[in-house]
């Protein structure tokens, strides 16, 4: 049997990145995304992808991991590579009977592929390597509404619980020789599974809330975070700012 892993597993960042302030890492990922989606020229986009790959490596993503996380993009990109060259007018690059594929359309599809992958890699490397709870605290410090942060922190906690519950229910189904097929019986069974998942989990949520109230929980967490801005963070922020400015200048439309 497969080793049971929790679904929310952050990658382990290298020492340098791990000591950077979580807020800086979130803001850097957002700034990188903002600059990258605005880039037009391919060399600048390639540089963005290289920077994102470096961020992913600093965030502890292995090559296999990175490729696996980029795989979900493949479906949409395949559709875009198939349709954009036919739709964007321009110099023909390939002609098949009445259809002509334009170079401009192909370039547009490549631009989208580079932008999408670069943003995903940078996001996984800079933010995905944070502990989910630290991420919640950093989001609170960045000014997100308190209730939303509470919801975030509870959800992080319950994902592990529910995933465990889900695996137990799946195992119970397997023990009764359930094999998922493409028929109404399977779908109905999965519907009952979803219902059971909700019933058991909400029951557990009630018990957890009761236990927390018992210990004096009055609806609020006290954030016991130790986010502290170091001198290294200022240097990293300046470095990231300069790099992004350079990227922006390189990528301006000619």
């Amino acid at each position, binding site marked *: 049997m497969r080793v049971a892993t929790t679904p929310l597993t952050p990658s382990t960042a290298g020492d340098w990145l791990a000591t950077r302030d979580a807020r800086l890492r979130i803001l850097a990922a957002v700034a990188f995304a903002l600059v990258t989606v605005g880039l037009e020229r391919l060399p600048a986009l390639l540089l963005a992808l290289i920077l994102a790959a470096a961020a992913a490596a600093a965030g502890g993503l292995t090559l296999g991991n990175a490729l696996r996380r980029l795989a979900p993009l493949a479906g949409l990109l395949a559709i875009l590579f198939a349709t954009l060259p036919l739709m964007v007018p321009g110099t023909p690059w390939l002609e098949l009977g009445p259809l002509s594929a334009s170079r401009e359309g192909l370039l547009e599809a490549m631009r989208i592929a580079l932008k999408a992958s670069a943003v995903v890699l940078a996001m996984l490397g800079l933010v995905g390597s944070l502990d989910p709870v630290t991420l919640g605290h950093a989001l609170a410090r960045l000014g997100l509404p308190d209730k939303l942060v509470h919801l975030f922190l509870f959800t992080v906690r319950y994902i592990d619980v529910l995933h465990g519950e889900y695996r137990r229910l799946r195992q119970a189904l397997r023990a009764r020789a359930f094999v998922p097929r493409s028929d109404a019986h399977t779908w109905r069974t999965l519907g009952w599974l979803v*219902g059971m998942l909700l019933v058991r989990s909400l029951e557990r949520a009630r018990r957890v809330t009761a236990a927390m109230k018992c210990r004096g929980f009055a609806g609020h967490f006290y954030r016991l975070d130790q986010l502290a801005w170091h001198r290294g963070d200022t240097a990293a922020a300046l470095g990231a700012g300069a790099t992004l400015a350079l990227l922006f200048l390189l990528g301006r439309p000619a």
Partner: protein
Amino acid sequence: MSARLLAERAPIAHIPDGVLAAPVLVTGAVVTAGAVLVGLRQLDYERIPQAAVLAAAFFVASLIAVPLGPSSVHLLLNGLMGLVLGWAAAPAILVALALQAVFFGFGGLLVLGVNTMNMAVPALVCAALFRAPLRRHPGRGAFLIGAGAGALGVLLTGVLIAVALAASGSALAPAAKIILLTYLPLALVEAVVTGAAVTFLGRVAPEILCPPEATGHDR
């Protein structure tokens, strides 16, 4: 998480960064922010654990690959979220999508607003249409109400994704149509799954579907 679950994500429910035009991104962010703020106002601290359980369930259920013909599809369950959570579905969906983006790489950062809008608006529509009939006669017709919410949630999400793409440039229109087509089989699956889930909840734990608003507390 196995690679198998990650490799095949059909239909496409998360738009990545770099595809949509700026006005679409801004619209998505504004609509999402509005819906989330209303949802948060209606969500008191007492009910946060419950909403979090459902956000987590939404997250876990999206990992289930349901066989369909030669391929498989992933559940959205936004219709069910709307039925159970009402307005609070918007912040719950935002949190689940943010976690999927940051830790799995589904979607992107700047598109988070649009991606949340695409799933949360159908959830709110399902809440507005189906919560009252479900409350009036829980149990009776539960399957049909659930199936309606399941199918409508999925179809509206497909339509919103297609509209977001088509509004970002006429060259994206064929891609939008292809993606919309891939939502039709999921609507069928999701109708049966949500119908069964709502029937089950109606029998086993009707208080989840019709929260006793008058009491509000456990005791």
